[in-house]
């Protein structure tokens, strides 16, 4: 045993002093390290540290995080930052950007910058809430389908296929016809349209995990079902869920914009990035008054891209098979 310790240390001479100390501490038992992999295995780094270290290698994602935090912060602090109340008529109709109104005013004289800040709030709220709802629904259904299998699996997965094959615009149209279109309706609709992907993802992961020895070990140890599902299986599927959720977030923000642009989403006077673009349906606005639609359009693109970059970096960082 003593000998093996020495050997471990020798092998790692080139590693930093600190690491060697940890390793010599960590060999309580017998085996000599089997080359590369063992050396890597013995570094004392928690999973989250590894993920964070890998994540930092993605410069684009780091920039994206800063962008998202800045924009999110601005949206959160909209009441403080906005120079005017978003729904107040404060200036000339369709006024060009000026010292008083940095981004101009819209067709009925509201300050575009103030509206933009509040619109970002709404769009982020819709995106995050819809993602939350679809993630929760997807995770619960995926867990049940994957773990119990059989009839439950069959029923849930066929229902999932059904929802997936529904064009969501149609759903929204129907829902808008039955209920009044509005903020919470669009959140609910997007939330209940986006979950099938997550359900499938979770189900696949659970099917895999269910057959692993550590789950069987827990069954043999007589652990209760809730422990196995939520404490053993779920933490092992968090990584792919997180990655998928970022893309759902980006997608639902885009969907909100599209629906609001068509007038089916968030209803005026409440501003959202989508319905601010609504004005661009008119040719004069599109060609002569770019301050009315360019800022909102750019914000959507920047937010969606930033979120997607973060998702990409997360996927790489969380992948246990990537060697870095």
């Amino acid at each position, binding site marked *: 045993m003593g000998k093996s310790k020495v050997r471990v240390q020798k092998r790692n001479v080139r590693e930093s002093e600190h690491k060697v100390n940890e390793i010599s501490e960590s060999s*309580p038992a017998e*085996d000599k390290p089997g080359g590369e992999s063992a050396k890597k295995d013995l570094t004392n780094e928690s999973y989250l540290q590894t993920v964070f270290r890998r994540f930092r290698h993605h410069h684009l994602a780091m920039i994206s995080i800063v962008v998202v935090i800045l924009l999110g912060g601005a949206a959160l602090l909209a009441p403080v930052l906005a120079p005017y109340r978003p729904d107040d008529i404060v200036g000339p109709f369709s006024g060009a950007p000026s010292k008083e109104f940095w981004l101009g005013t819209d067709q009925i004289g509201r300050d575009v910058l103030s509206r933009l800040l509040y619109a970002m709030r709404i769009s982020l709220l819709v995106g995050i809430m819809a993602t939350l709802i679809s993630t929760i629904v997807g995770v619960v259904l995926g867990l049940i389908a994957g773990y119990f299998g059989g009839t439950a699996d069959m029923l849930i997965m066929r229902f999932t296929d059904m929802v997936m094959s529904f064009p969501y615009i149609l759903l929204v149209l129907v829902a808008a016809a039955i209920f009044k279109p509005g903020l919470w309706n669009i959140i609910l609709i997007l939330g209940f349209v986006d979950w099938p992907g997550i359900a499938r993802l979770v189900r696949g992961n659970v099917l895999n995990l269910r057959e692993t020895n550590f789950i069987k070990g827990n*069954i*043999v140890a007589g652990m209760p079902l809730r422990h196995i599902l939520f404490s053993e299986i779920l933490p092992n599927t968090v990584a792919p869920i997180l990655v998928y959720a970022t893309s759902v977030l980006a997608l639902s923000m885009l969907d909100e914009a599209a629906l609001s642009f068509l007038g089916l989403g968030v209803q005026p006077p409440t501003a959202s990035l989508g319905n601010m673009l609504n004005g661009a349906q008119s040719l004069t606005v599109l060609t002569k008054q770019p301050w009315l639609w360019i800022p909102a359009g750019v914000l959507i693109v920047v937010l969606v891209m930033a979120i997607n970059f973060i998702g990409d970096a997360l996927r790489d960082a969380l992948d246990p098979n990537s060697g870095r």
Partner: protein
Amino acid sequence: MKTEETVPLVRAENLKVYYPIKGGIINHTTGYVKAVDGVSFFIREGETLGLVGESGCGKSTIGRQLVGLEKPTEGKIFFEGRDLSLLKKDEMQKIRTRLQMVFQDPYSSLNPRKHIFEILSQPMLYHGISTRESVEKDMIRILDMVGLSRNTLGRYPHEFSGGQRQRIGIARALSLNPKFIVCDEPVSALDVSIQAQILNLLKSLQKELNLTLLFVGHGLGAVNYVSDRIAVMYLGKIVEMGDAKEIFHHPAHPYTKALLNAVPVPDPEEKRRERRLLEGEIGDSTHPPAGCRFHPRCPYAVETCRQKEPGLQKMEKASSHEAACPIVMTKEEEIG
């Protein structure tokens, strides 16, 4: 080991495990894989039964049955005289702590997201075997038993080598104070040098804690080393069963002989033995051969082997050595 006639701790009676094969357009059952097909055995308290056979002969399936991971298609399993299939759910949960398992692959048997403290403490706390105050002390005691130091607790599974992980796996099984542990090929995924250490550990733990073990393995050498008795399986059936020494030195069944022949001897000086290795593959467990299941590969097979399926028979009247090969038995009688 124990000579007094007690109720065996574990007993399997005519155990059958069939897995349905789904297929066709409407996903109906097209046949069954007969993984275990009518197996009876018992394990006395404090004894180790070794279960050997080729891959796919059903030995691991038996292990999973005994700890209640799967339900038998037919037949019964008794633990301390109680039929496991008749137990209610909560009774089963209680009895589970006393039936534990050590898995083959130490790399997948520990949750990669939890450190060892959580992996070991959660079951103990759930079953009230330990309390929040005493759990750390208990864990250190168990880790000490399996030869690991206390600073194992704060680490994650990926920081350990295969042998260390298997020790943790054994510690987890021990933490629930089990009476009976199924060791499902616990060393076959490890380096040879570490295999011996794990085998020695299991052996000494068994003595120390008076454990009852079912040791599943495919190498007769390792199994013989830890076992008091050995059962040899072929294609879902036990073909020979008896004391380990007896099986190792006087194998009766041609399949057991072939297995022994396949054990490499670490002696370069030894004259090249006459090695009669088996030819062919293990048969198809969906459609096992008629008659004796071993007859297509058996060098001694005669016509009756193709027709009548032999059952286990005692070699001598009073002995516990049983084999399912009437041909060899009669032959030996002629010789002896």
